[in-house]
Every structure is written in C-alpha cells, then in structure tokens.
C-alpha cells in the first residue's frame, strides 16, 4: 500500500504544475451577475435527486403495479373458464361387434333444432346406428343432489331401416316428454353399394333417462351402451351461496345508499352496487346453465346398417385400451401445456422486461453516482 505522505506529495505536485487563471474566476462572476435564473426549473439539481434506493423502490413498485394490473384480469378470466371439477361417476356397458368396412363419402342431411322429425333417405345397403346419451338428473330441484348424466348407444339395424328407426326413436322420446335435438343421416357408397348411417341426439327429463336408454336398445341390435353421470351438487350449492351472499351485500348497500347524503358517498355506493349487480347476474347465468344441464339428459344414438362398419368407436381393451389411454393422456398433457403457455409466456416476458428495465435503471444510477 502506498504511503500517504508520498501520495499526497505526488498529487500536490501534479496538480500544482499550472497556474489557475483568474480570468476564469471573473468569468464566473460575470455570468452570475448577468443572472440566468432559467436553471431554477422543475428539474432538481443532480445532487438533490432521489437516491438510488428510493428510485429503485419506486420503479419496482410501478412495475409491480403494471404487471399486477395486467395479470390480475387474466388470472381471473383463467379461473372463470377453468373446467368444472365434476368427473364422470359411472360408466357402464361396452359391447362391440363391428364387421365389414366402408368409406363414408357421403351426402349428408342434417336437421338440427328442437323436436325435428328425422328426414331420412335410406338408399344404402347397410346402416349403422350409434347412440350417445347425455342425461341430467335433478333429484330435487332446489336442495338435493344435482346429477348430470350422459350416454351413448350404438345400434345396428336392418338394411334401409334408418328412417324407420328414426321414427321409432322420435316416438319413444316424445312419450317420455323429451325431444329430438338433432338428427343426421349420411348416405355413402362402398364396394357393396350404397348405405346409410344416422345419428340422433335426444333430450329427456332426467327421471326418464334410464327408461329411455332401455327403450332405445330395443330399437335395434345394441353394439355399445355407455352412460355416465356426474354429481354437480357442490357447484350448485356453491353458486347459490355466492348469489345469496352477493344479494345480502346488495341489500346492505341499498340501505347505506338510502342514508347517504353527499354526492361522493352516493357515487361510491353506486359503484359498489354496480359491481355486485354484474356479479349476481354472472353467477345467476352460471346457475341457469347448471340447472338446464341437470334438468335434461342428452342421449346420442348412432345407427349403423347391418353388415356395414362406419367409424364406430370400438371400446378398447387390453393393450389397445392402454395404448389409446396413453395417447389420450399425452394429448391432454400437451393441451394442458399449451393452455398454460399463454400466462407463463406473459409472466416470463413481464419478468424479463422488469429485469431489463431494472438492470438498465441500476446501471444508469450507478453511472450517475460516484
């Protein structure tokens, strides 16, 4: 370490090698006398500006505010659109027998809507029927278990019998106080000639769902029957509770509103009321959807003419099932990753931007300070 005295002498010697101009000193006084008050402006002098730590805190707070303001609505919407926790509770039935194969190049006629009568032109040599069934069970309208059920039934019917089967199914669903949501008939050709294939979607009150499934199986030769149901009571109860709480808050605000005297108070309460109102309407909408889903069950019936095989989904078993489940799981996982990629990418970008800005600010502050 260098000796202090040596250093002092060296610096004094180096700095003393020139004369300081007295003219420069006079120049400063002249400038001061002329008076230039322009610098006393909004911007403070550098030696009085906020110190680095204060500025860093302010920058960080501002960044957090911006990121929070952007990501909060995203998170909320993400939460709002997340799928319900209900899972299929029961699955039963799996009989498959498929023979033959045919390409379905086809003309398609579809009737979609409430209570349509199936329009069928059976020109094919064979026909196949598949049934899909969604059934909603509302055990007790207001308080008891809310169950949503779905089902698929595949039927094989005789050649040229698609129209007849459609008519039979329509009668069945009408007798159970249900209705036909949609019906489709496809006409295709293969080496054996033309064939027909039809799909019908039926909705029945949940109490008649099981009856309908049984009846439908009598309309042809069932090759596959799959039904499932899920308990959505907890969702229902949760929604009701949230609506009740919001209603109670709304009532309280209305009381406060009636006692408010100043404009600012009224505006504040009004703002809260508006928020609550939209919240209640949103929740009520969700409740209505849930009610509809649990009041009616949907049954999808697929019809295939005998001897014809369309792309009936064979219930898998053994290695095939494992393979199928594996592929499905992989796809689900990939979808999950893609779904998360958006918010994750945003978060990464926001953090990256914050990091770059912070680093730049830190460097600028460091450069400014000695």
């Amino acid at each position, binding site marked *: *370490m*260098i000796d*202090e005295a*040596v*250093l*002092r*002498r*060296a*610096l*004094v*010697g*180096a*700095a*003393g*090698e*020139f*004369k*300081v*101009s007295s003219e*420069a*000193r006079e*120049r*400063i*006084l002249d*400038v*001061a*006398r002329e*008076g*230039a*008050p322009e*610098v*006393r402006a909004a911007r*403070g*002098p*550098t*030696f*009085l500006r906020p*110190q680095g730590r204060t500025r860093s805190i302010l920058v960080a707070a501002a960044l957090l505010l911006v990121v929070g303001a952007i990501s909060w609505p995203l998170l909320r919407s993400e939460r709002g659109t997340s799928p319900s926790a209900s899972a299929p509770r029961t699955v039963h039935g799996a009989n498959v027998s498929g023979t033959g194969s045919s390409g379905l190049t086809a003309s398609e006629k579809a009737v979609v809507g409430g209570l349509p009568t199936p329009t069928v032109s059976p020109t094919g040599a064979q026909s196949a029927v598949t049934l899909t069934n969604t059934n909603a069970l509302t055990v007790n309208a207001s308080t008891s278990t809310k169950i949503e059920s779905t089902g698929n039934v595949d039927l094989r019917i005789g050649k040229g019998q698609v129209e007849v089967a459609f008519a039979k199914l329509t009668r069945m669903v009408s007798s159970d106080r249900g209705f036909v949501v949609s019906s489709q008939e496809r006409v295709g050709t293969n080496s054996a000639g033309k064939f027909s294939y039809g799909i019908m979607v039926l909705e029945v009150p949940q109490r008649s769902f099981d009856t309908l499934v049984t009846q439908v199986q009598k309309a042809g030769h069932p090759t596959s029957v799959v039904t499932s149901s899920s308990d959505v009571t907890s969702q229902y109860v949760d929604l009701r509770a949230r609506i009740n709480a919001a209603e109670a808050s709304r009532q309280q605000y209305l009381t406060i509103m009636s006692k408010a005297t100043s404009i600012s108070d009224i505006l504040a309460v009004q703002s809260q009321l508006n928020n609550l109102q939209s919240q209640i309407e949103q929740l009520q909408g969700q409740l209505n959807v849930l009610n509809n889903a649990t009041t009616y069950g949907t049954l999808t019936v697929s019809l295939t003419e005998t001897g014809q095989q369309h792309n009936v989904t064979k219930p898998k078993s053994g290695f095939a099932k494992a393979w199928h489940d594996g592929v499905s799981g992989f796809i689900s996982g990939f979808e999950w990753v893609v779904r998360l990629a958006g918010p994750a990418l945003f978060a990464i970008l926001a953090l990256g931007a914050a990091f770059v800005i912070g680093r730049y600010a830190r460097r600028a502050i460091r*450069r*400014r*300070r*000695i």
Partner: protein
Amino acid sequence: MEGSTDVDELETWLCECYDQSVRTAYLILGNRLDAEDAVQEAFLRAWRFRDSLARESSIRPWLYRVVVNTCNSKLRQEIPHRDRRGDDDDLVNVTSIDDLAARVEQSQDVVSALKELPLALRVVVVLRYFADLSEREIAIAIGRQPGTVKSRLNEARKRLAASPALRATPQEQSPTGEEATS
C-alpha cells in the same frame, strides 16, 4: 441589495475554493481546460441552487459534491464524444521553468496513474490526499457512507502502490503553487 449579496457569497466561495476545485477537477479529469469548464459549471450550478444546499455544516464538502458530480457528468456524456483536448494545453502556464521537462513528465505520469484508477477510487483519493477533506466530508461529497470511503481509499492506495510513477516520486518534491496546499 439581495442580488449583490448573493454574488458576494459566490465571490467568497470562489476565493476560498476555486483554485483548489480546479486542481481537484484537473486530477479527476486529467485536463486543465475540462477542469476549468467543470468547475465553472459546478459553481454556477451550486450558486443557482444555493437555497437547496445544506447549510448545517461547512459549504466545502457540498461544493466538492457539485464539482465531483459535474466531473462525473462530463466524463460520462461529454468527454467520450469529442476529440481529446491537446495535452499541450495542460501545462501552458507552468509556474517555473526549473527542471521543466522532468517535472512535466513526473506530473503527467501521476495524472496517468490516477487515470488508471476507476473513477470512484480516483475521486476519493483526490479529495482525501489533495483537497484534504476528511473521510466524513468525502462521504458527503460523494453521497456514500464513511465506511465506503475508507474501503475505497484503501483499495486505491493498494492499486497506486503498483504505479512506478508514484513509487519514483522524489521525497523532496514540494508543491509549486501555494494554492495547491491551501
């Protein structure tokens, strides 16, 4: 008149600190004309913002703070973007011609050794061993803690020990200008 009183105050500052400030700025910047520019700007700035300067203690460290900030600003913004002023300007008005060549060389070597130091270390060394500020006053001048000043001084002295120019500084060399030691 208040205006004249204020200018008197500036005049007082100039009498007390101008020469020392110019030489300090010279050691920091390594160029006499830049040093004069920086000090002029610093004094005018300090005078214009004189109401904001802390008055509870001596004005000297605060003035040095403005000078140091101005030097820093010049080193960051101005000096890197223009051609370096000729070194000839630095020693136009040498105070004597005795051993001129040797002393000029010695002086240049010391300034070069200082320039090798990072600015943060250079400033504390100059303020401590040339401007003769205490560690506390240096802390005020650079807006840091006295402990930081102390560690920087140690680090600077370690680095300067390796400089041949400073090792060769003759013991008998004395300051040439009276202002330099005032």
